[in-house]
Structure formats: structure tokens, C-alpha cells
């Protein structure tokens, strides 16, 4: 007779860590990483007009994106 396959179980602690790690990664990506790369509106810089792109402008706009 073939051996019964073993049951794979996690401890409550393991499960909690894995669930928490997933949620924390998603939260960090959505709330930190992506907002830090928030795309400024080219219109805000009058692209091709009199206003030219300056670091201070970009910094201010990106800070604004963090809301």
C-alpha cells in the first residue's frame, strides 16, 4: 500500500508572518514607492514654453503628489 502523503501545516506564527509580509509589501509599494514616482503634469512646467524645468519645481510637484 502506498504511504499516505504527510499533511503540511503552518504554525499560527508562520501564517501570521507570511500574511503580514504580503500586506506590508503591498502597503509599502502603494503608499511609498509609487507616490514617490508620481508623474508630474508636463503642463505644470509649461513644456516648451517660457518656463523651464528646474529641480525645485520637480521637487515641489512630487511632494504635492504624496498628498
Amino acid at each position, binding site marked *: 500500500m502506498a*504511504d499516505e*502523503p*504527510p*499533511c*503540511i*501545516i*503552518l*504554525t*499560527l506564527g508562520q*501564517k501570521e508572518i*507570511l*500574511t503580514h*509580509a*504580503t*500586506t506590508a*509589501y*503591498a502597503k509599502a*509599494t*502603494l503608499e511609498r*514607492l*509609487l507616490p514617490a*514616482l*508620481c*508623474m*508630474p503634469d*508636463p503642463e505644470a*512646467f509649461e*513644456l*516648451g*514654453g*517660457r518656463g*523651464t*524645468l528646474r529641480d525645485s519645481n520637480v521637487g515641489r510637484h512630487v511632494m504635492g503628489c504624496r498628498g
Partner: protein
Amino acid sequence: MSAGMSWDAEDEADEAASGPMKTFFDERQFLRRQVLDFAFAALFHLLERALQRILHQADDVHSEGVLQGKKLRQFDEMCRVLARCGYDTTGLPFARDLDKLKLISNAVKHGQGVALYRLAKEFPELFLSREPTETLVFEHLSLTPELFTRLAASVADFWDSFPTQQPVLEG
């Protein structure tokens, strides 16, 4: 330039700046897309890696009774082993999302290829509309932060539904 307006040094500076500015915005757009796309791939990688470790550890504890000498290469294989060992995720609410995440991850990592075509066939809603004769390219795939949130919740559900050791009651 309109007739009658003079072209001065400031205009010249603006014109010279507009090229680099466009490049800057294009690069930022590209960077943001890459980061979001690879966030899906990383989410799947974390799931796959953790599951692989759990199966290997269980295999060590049970004298190779879990893997039975087989090598684990793909997520689907891991799920089949897991089902044999008491946790069958087939038909559970998050199962289709995990399949979607796997295909997205492979499409992001490999670009044009089998995973992208399978993804387009099984989940056409993830793609921008295109003409029937237009060739499918990676740029048609449109991933959103909302989808990332949902798939991350499904991965969390996968772990949350994992069979757990019951605490030993005293007395």
C-alpha cells in the same frame, strides 16, 4: 514663431530645454510603469519562494515523502504537491487571482512570449483595446495599482487559509 515677434536668447533656451524635458517626462513615465509592473513580479516571487521553502522543509522533516524525489520548478507543481498534502486551493476564491498573478509575473519578466499570449487569452480585460489584426505587444498590457491591491489581498488570503496547527488544549 509668429510674424513680427522677435526670436531672442530666451526663446532659444526654451527650445533647447524642451527636448531634454520631454525625455525627462518620458523616462519618468517609463520608470513608473516599470516599478509598478515589477511590483507584481516581486509579489509573485515572494509567494513562490516562501511556498518552495515550506515544501522543502516539510520534505526534509518527512524523509522526502512530500516531494518524492521530484524537483520543484513551477508554481503549479507546488500547488499540486500542496493539494496532495492537505491544502487544495482549487476553486477557492483567490485561486484564479493567483493564476492571474503568475501569468502577469511571467509576462513582465519575459515580455513578448507564451505568458503574455495566455494572459491576453484568459484575462483580456487587462489589455488596452486593439484592432483585431494588430499584433499583441507587451505595451498593450495595462496594470493598475488597484489590481495590485486586489492580487496582494488574494496572496494574503492564500496564506490565511493555509491549514494551521491547532493549539494543544490543556486539561
